């Protein structure tokens, strides 16, 4: 008789302690830091109350990394950075070194292997992004490829600190927006209601859950061709795609009609004004792999105007607050259409209830 296979029980250890992984200077000066400055773009210099100093060199990565790339980064860390690295929330890698002399050779080594050094201060940092066609089950577009195409164009600003303030960009492959709030966001905007595969709904979808998922109550149960299915009131549907994840037969992705929208002015920081949501400023851009040139053109145009016109320390949202939306659309050449007037809940708060108008 076969013995039953003994399965290994998981060790439910949770979030590991980071102390063993800290660079020795960071571990020694934990909670004791006094200030920092930036000797050059891509380098942070932190000084402790103890007098200890540490230089952090930040480099861009492709985020989705093959093991060879990670091992190369490890080789560099072993050679220069006491075998310690850390990653930022925007998938940049940081190498900490305990003497200023190590900074330039480390930068040279990183650049030699194709890792751009930058992403600090008033730069355009790496784009925060999602999974896309590579791994997601509901993507309207790709993420890694769109980011690669954009960063190829923006790398000069990644390596410099010449923007009015830091610029965070995100991309998202559906309206769930896993990329998050940012100064500029590129997000799929579907333009047609889902096409329903009625043969599959009854077997694949929990229909009441799908009905409940719709933000505008446009979905209702129906019998179609003798089978239990769902139908959509297309006059109500605003094509958000919320029904698609719980019910894949509600095919929302459309190679031609799923477009890209661009949003600006989101920020999470409390610095100066309160955190802000981003606002849609254009839509209808084609989903055009492998390099999405139409999206890149608009993003670069917005960034160019912001760089020319923004004052020091103005984030995208601060800049627009000063110049007003009318001038934003004028300067960027983007058309203001009726689709940009909010009509979702709470929308009156976004209307101009004043005579404050710039001429």
């Amino acid at each position, binding site marked *: 008789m076969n013995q039953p296979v003994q*399965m290994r*029980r*998981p060790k*439910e250890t*949770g*979030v*590991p302690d*980071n102390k063993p*992984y800290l660079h020795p200077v960071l571990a020694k000066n*934990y909670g004791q*830091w*006094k*200030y*920092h*400055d930036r000797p050059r773009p891509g380098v942070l210099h932190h000084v402790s109350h103890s007098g200890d100093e540490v230089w952090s060199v930040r480099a861009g*990565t*492709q985020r*989705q990394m*093959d*093991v*060879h*790339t*990670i091992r190369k*980064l*490890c080789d560099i*860390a072993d050679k220069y950075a006491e*075998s310690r*690295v*850390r*990653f930022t*929330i925007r998938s940049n890698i940081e190498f900490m070194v305990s003497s200023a002399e190590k900074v330039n050779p480390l930068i040279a080594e990183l650049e030699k292997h194709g890792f*751009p050094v930058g992403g600090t201060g008033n730069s355009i940092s790496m784009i925060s*992004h999602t*999974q896309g066609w*590579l*791994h997601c089950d509901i*993507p309207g577009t*790709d993420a890694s*490829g769109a980011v*690669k*195409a954009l960063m*190829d164009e923006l790398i000069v600003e990644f390596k410099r600190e010449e923007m009015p303030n830091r610029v965070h960009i995100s991309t998202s492959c559906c*309206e*769930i927006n896993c990329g*998050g*709030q940012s100064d500029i966001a590129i997000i799929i905007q579907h333009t047609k209601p889902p096409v329903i595969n009625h043969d599959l709904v009854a077997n694949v979808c929990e229909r009441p*859950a799908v009905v*409940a998922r719709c933000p505008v109550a446009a979905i209702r149960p129906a019998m179609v061709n003798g089978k239990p299915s769902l139908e959509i009131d297309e006059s109500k549907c605003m094509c958000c795609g919320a029904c698609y994840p719980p019910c894949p037969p509600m095919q929302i992705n459309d190679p031609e009609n*799923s477009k890209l929208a661009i949003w600006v002015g989101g920020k*999470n920081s409390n*610095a100066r*004004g309160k*955190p802000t*949501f981003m606002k849609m400023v254009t839509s209808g851009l084609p989903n055009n*792999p*492998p390099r999405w040139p139409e999206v890149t053109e608009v993003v670069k145009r917005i960034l160019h105007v912001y760089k020319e016109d923004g004052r*020091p*320390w103005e984030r995208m949202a601060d800049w627009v607050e000063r110049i007003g939306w009318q001038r934003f659309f004028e300067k960027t050449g983007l058309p203001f259409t009726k689709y940009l007037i909010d009509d*979702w*809940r709470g929308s009156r708060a976004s209307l101009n209830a004043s005579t404050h108008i710039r001429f």
Partner: protein
Amino acid sequence: MAKKMHDTPNLDQLEDGPWPSFVTGLKALAKDKDYVVDLLGQLETSYRTKKGYWKGGTVGVFGYGGGVIPRFTELKDEKGQPVFKDAAEFHTLRIMPPPGMHYDTATLRKFCDIWEKHGSGLIALHGQSGDIMMQGCTTENVQKAWDEINEMGFDMGGAGPAVRTSMSCVGAARCEQSCYDEAKAHRTVVNTFLDDIHRPSLPYKFKFKFSGCPNDCMNSIQRSDMAVIGTWRDNIRTDEAMAKKWFARHSMDQLVNDIVARCPTKTFQLRQIKDVRSGPSISSVAINDTHAIEIDNHDCVRCMHCINVMTGALAPGEDKGATILVGGKRTLKIGDLMGTVVVPFMKLETDEDMEKLVDLGQRIIDFFAENALEHERTGEMIERIGLASFLDALEIEADSNMVSTPRTNPYIRTDGWDDEVARINAKKHAAT
């Protein structure tokens, strides 16, 4: 040597240009792995047809109910067989990183060895949830890879209607703005809820995030159900030598235009030294022989701007702690929500303080589990029931710091007003 590569004319174009290319990385893996050859084949198809071809399913590891993101190909031929059979399964393991995402190279190399052996060799550092994403594994190999990763001391992250993997900023490890021990709070809180991470049974996802100061580098206010954001109650600290050094390297124009004019409450003022006020809420520091900065801290909202501009010359106070905001989320279903203040300030220094934070998280999750509708986030639940009901249930006292303004409409039944005032006064009286 792996099998012959498929033609990938679209993906090839993503090898051009100066930014590091994930396609080049995938092709390097494909030299040894049929798995990645076929992955590139499917991805190229997506680039050609503009359609995604993965569907979910059920794949897990023994003992846990979540943490693996299953992916099966939907790209089939007319016989129903996968077009790219070697990449028919492409599951991801979500692994929780150490706070602040610090690593030694031995650990990263071990991840690489494990993933080269059992998976595709593609690792995302990190996913939007904060996980180490070990991307691309067959159903058969998921358990093998997991066993080895778990033996390294790493645990699986959350997926589905569960407490999710958390993130904390670099914080006390390397940042002068840190207002609490982010890593300690992160581990203490999240490791309390491991059962809710590994066995999804909540109405929907629940996220904690930990930022050490109001710059909120973890984007916690809009990306988490419970945001722990560092702040302080006492006065901004000053350093005269560094203030003078800053001014010597900058100018009066910059001081006025970049800081004075950008202070959101206009409490940051420039004064002649002879006119500088003193008092328990005043911070002041000379910038040269004639002028000084004066900040009335009662009017300061701790936005961080002046401290960001003059780091070292100005610093957060010493009576540090955190503000807790609840309910942040992105679009679906009712629209974007920022987290809003539920606890204006709490100390996070002692183990007892940390226990209070854990207790708050526990009570919020318990209430969420019992009261949220299916697929409803905390922010949506609070929007539905009103913040006052939420506070009542959690026995948290209402506080004017929780609102931008008081109510602007009369649509509230107020016959409990006198009792409420009496209760507040009695509580105040008892405290004195």
